[in-house]
């Protein structure tokens, strides 16, 4: 029972262990640059939604960075699937697709949570106080699960490396910049507002920011996050099944 889950996780964690130094360094650099540029640049001279900008920014960086890491397993899956055919070993083993998806999802969540811990460390260095409660934990788990299952889905659906890069350029990067990571989405023109409210990151950012800064968490947004997570999980299962098609 759960041999597939344990096997996939064993593989991913062992590979990660060998690249941990490089991976952690790479994932820590970009949020640090954002913090230096925008956090120190604007500091507490600028207030957004009643919060000093750096306090507003850090939850956004948490959602951005954890998304990058959780969704980023798509790139790794892509390489193992198309170039090294390692994924075939899972498909011919006596394990179910659910176990494969859950194993990969657990790894993606692990990476997302690691990057979250890094940003928390930055928040201490930058003197930003955050409120960490159960709602935040539930939200960050849902957020990382949601984006890692999206990553698995995309990795299984694309036909090559180029397609994967195109999805990153045309979907993921715009989503990161438009979904309230760096500024409140309410400031966007109406057309863009409609667009960003169709994107899951908007709800993740709002829920996580509210949970960390002591604001009111909109339960409808949290339910929408759970809804996106359920949809992407089913999509990931179907996408793995499609590989065998």
């Amino acid at each position: 029972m759960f041999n597939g889950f344990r096997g996939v996780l064993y593989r991913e964690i062992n590979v990660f262990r060998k690249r941990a130094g490089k991976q952690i360094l790479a994932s820590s650099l970009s949020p640090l640059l954002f913090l230096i540029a925008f956090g120190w640049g604007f500091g507490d001279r600028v207030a957004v939604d009643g919060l000093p900008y750096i306090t507003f920014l850090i939850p956004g960086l948490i959602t951005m960075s954890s998304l990058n890491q959780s969704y980023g397993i798509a790139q790794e899956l892509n390489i193992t699937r198309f170039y090294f055919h390692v994924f075939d070993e899972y498909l011919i083993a006596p394990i179910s697709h659910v176990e494969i998806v859950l194993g990969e999802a657990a790894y993606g969540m692990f990476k997302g949570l690691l990057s979250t811990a890094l940003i928390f460390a930055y928040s201490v260095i930058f003197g930003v106080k955050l409120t960490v409660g159960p709602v935040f934990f539930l939200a960050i788990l849902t957020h990382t699960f949601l984006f890692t299952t999206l990553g698995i889905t995309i990795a299984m659906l694309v036909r090559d490396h180029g397609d994967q890069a195109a999805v990153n350029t045309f979907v993921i990067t715009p989503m990161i910049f438009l979904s309230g990571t760096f500024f409140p989405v309410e400031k966007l023109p109406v057309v863009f507002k409609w667009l960003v409210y169709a994107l899951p990151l908007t709800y993740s950012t709002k829920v996580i920011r509210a949970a960390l800064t002591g604001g009111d968490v909109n339960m409808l947004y949290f339910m929408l996050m759970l809804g996106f997570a359920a949809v992407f999980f089913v999509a990931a299962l179907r996408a793995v099944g499609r590989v065998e098609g």
Partner: protein
Amino acid sequence: MAVAERAGKVLEARGLVKKFGEKTAVAGIALDIREGDFTGLLGPNGAGKTTTIKMLTGLIKPTGGEIYYYGRDFFTCPKDAKRHIGVVPQHSNVDRDLTAYENLYLHSILHGIPKKRRREKIYEALEFAGLLDHRDRQVKTFSGGMKRRLVLVRALLHGPGILFLDEPTVGLDPQIRKNIWDLILKINQQKGMAILLTTHYIEEAEKLCRSTYIIDKGRIIIKGAPDDLKKDIGGYVLEIFREDGIEEAFFASKEDALERLRGCPHTCKVREVTLEDVFIKLTGKRINV
């Protein structure tokens, strides 16, 4: 089909079909593999060999047909069936970032080998492959032959009833190829495991396989023991080298072939029939093109 008819059969496939859009890659293949069989699936590139293996091992779903392992339907109980399957794919799909030991450990988890037996079985497999001293090296540092040996013992680790070998020696130099074939023969003889092999190396397939299926354009065109298939077209072939190409004539005995050779104004050669000749006789083309 009655249970008694299935007794001793490791694998039974009926009417296997695979279509990719409008293109039919496999058009109704039937196979029977019994315990200890060493069977070859031979044919030119694009004949449908790899697609057939992929369907039989669960890597792709067939468009139609039935597959049974030990009499049990592959599609209704895939987990059970996959426990009986060992696969050596065309590409050495070992994980290059993991060590040899870790690759086998991963396989042992996926195939549900009990934790307390894993280490012992892995060491045994590494020793069998001659890789015990390299167990803690990342596979990316391995040569092509070492990777193939690792893939081979990985496929055996969970004790499957049938081993699928899809072009297991393609791209390897002759010495390493021989080492791999020796290892495969040892597996068949010592472990009594059924083997289904696809290969381009027809001469090697002739030496190793006790039965063969010859496949072309997704269909099996003939099956039988290599010696029987060769006898059916005549044991000897006379090649006549004309200006416009090579003409081949088949004879039941060497004497008949030599008799025909007398007085031939062209360069001629008499040799024993090979499976390649069987294929040429049936399809008019070569397997190795």
